[in-house]
């Protein structure tokens, strides 16, 4: 949990899951009072949806994501406060990674971080922030005049060959604090080991060490490390 969230009394708004060959995480906007609610409901419903299809054979599409998102909208948005509800519940990044056939397919609405592990075990941190501010999926459903820049279908979509990349980890953008820091190499070593407990401890430890400076990681972090743990 990000130190600024602790400081300002905001819940952890970052969550994720792994299901078979799919990793999915959602990162709530801290300006949304209840974005963790939208995040959790979306992830739960999306996971339920994944159980109804063959994720090893069928590629997850934007339409699949939108289908679930629209279900969540119907659940959470009241007609008389719909703009406030959109902002408070539905402003969140969605990051999806699917390992299918000979590829990793990554889709991002909003912002985030990809960690690309190539076949030589070299790591690259990729900052996904393709607009000056995150292009949340909810903006496709709002006619705010000052959001005119976001009304095109701008999202990140990339396919990575398994011949080139051994692993693609997805993470919320809070992890980017580590890039370029003195801890980056230690973190990469932990990624090689893929031990969830040790990675979590490493992040906790940095926040503990830096607690007098309000923590090393200001924002919440979710990292999905080990796809295909299975159900």
């Amino acid at each position, binding site marked *: 949990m990000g130190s600024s969230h602790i400081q300002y009394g905001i819940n952890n708004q970052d969550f994720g899951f792994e299901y078979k060959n799919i990793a999915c995480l959602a990162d709530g906007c801290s300006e949304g009072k209840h974005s963790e609610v939208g995040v959790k409901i979306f992830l739960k419903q999306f996971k339920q949806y994944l159980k109804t299809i063959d994720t090893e054979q069928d590629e997850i599409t934007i339409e699949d994501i939108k289908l679930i998102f629209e279900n969540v909208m119907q659940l959470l948005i009241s007609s008389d406060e719909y703009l406030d509800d959109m902002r408070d519940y539905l402003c969140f990044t969605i990051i999806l990674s699917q390992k299918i056939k000979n590829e990793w397919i990554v889709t991002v609405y909003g912002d985030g971080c990809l960690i690309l592990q190539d076949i030589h075990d070299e790591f690259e941190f990729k900052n996904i922030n393709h607009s000056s501010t995150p292009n949340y999926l909810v903006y496709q459903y709002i006619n705010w005049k000052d959001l005119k820049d976001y009304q095109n279908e701008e999202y990140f979509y990339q396919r990575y060959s398994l011949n080139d990349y051994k692993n693609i980890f997805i993470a919320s953008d809070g992890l980017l604090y580590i890039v370029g820091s003195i801890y980056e190499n230690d973190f990469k070593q932990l990624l090689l080991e893929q*031990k*969830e*407990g*040790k990675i*979590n*401890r*490493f*992040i*906790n*430890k*940095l926040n*503990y*060490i830096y607690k007098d400076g309000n923590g090393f990681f200001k924002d919440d972090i979710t990292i999905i490390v080990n796809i295909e743990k299975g159900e």
Partner: protein
Amino acid sequence: MIIDGLSDQNENASIDELETEEVNLMFLAIDQSGSMHSYISIMQDELKKFKDSILNSKEYEKILVSRADFSNSIKIRGYKKIDEFDVDYEIQSTTCLYDVIKEGADKLLEYMECLKKQGMRVKAIFAVFSDGCDTSSITSISQARQIIEKFNQLEIVTVFVAFGNEAINEASQLAFRNILKVGQTESELRKAFNQLSKSLISQSKSVVPKKDDFFEL
């Protein structure tokens, strides 16, 4: 007063032995005073069952137990995984309950701080099993009570398995929040340890410490 095995950090499980982010520490002080002489074999049985119960649970990787024996001396072992839990039981004579509370408390707080600095999320239980009152401590009852009260504030779960009426009174005076009242019979003793292991496992599953409802399953 002989105090063995005190505060050498090397006695506790090292961070490298721990795979998880979370850990549940239990300090378990066990009365070995002479008044327990009728229950030696049951205690040996029940300590083994306590160990096996935790070892067979899904939570065992996240549980570390420090066993402390007290009578006319104190022996405090380090926080170890449950497969290293010593199930032997023997008796001596007196009861230095307040001293074991003091020494155990220092060791627990020290190890908790060490783990937190390494990024661990730590929950802790401070538990005592006793059949009677203190008879030989240097530490006073008010000092021991202050420790338990401080633990209650720190959200360390304080637990007293009170074997008999004398122990029940003692536990209340010491401000333990979770007191399991156990009749002085063999069957009650068996139930008590069964309850203790189940409660420890339940606490390990809980996101937050079960400060006032440790024995509620």
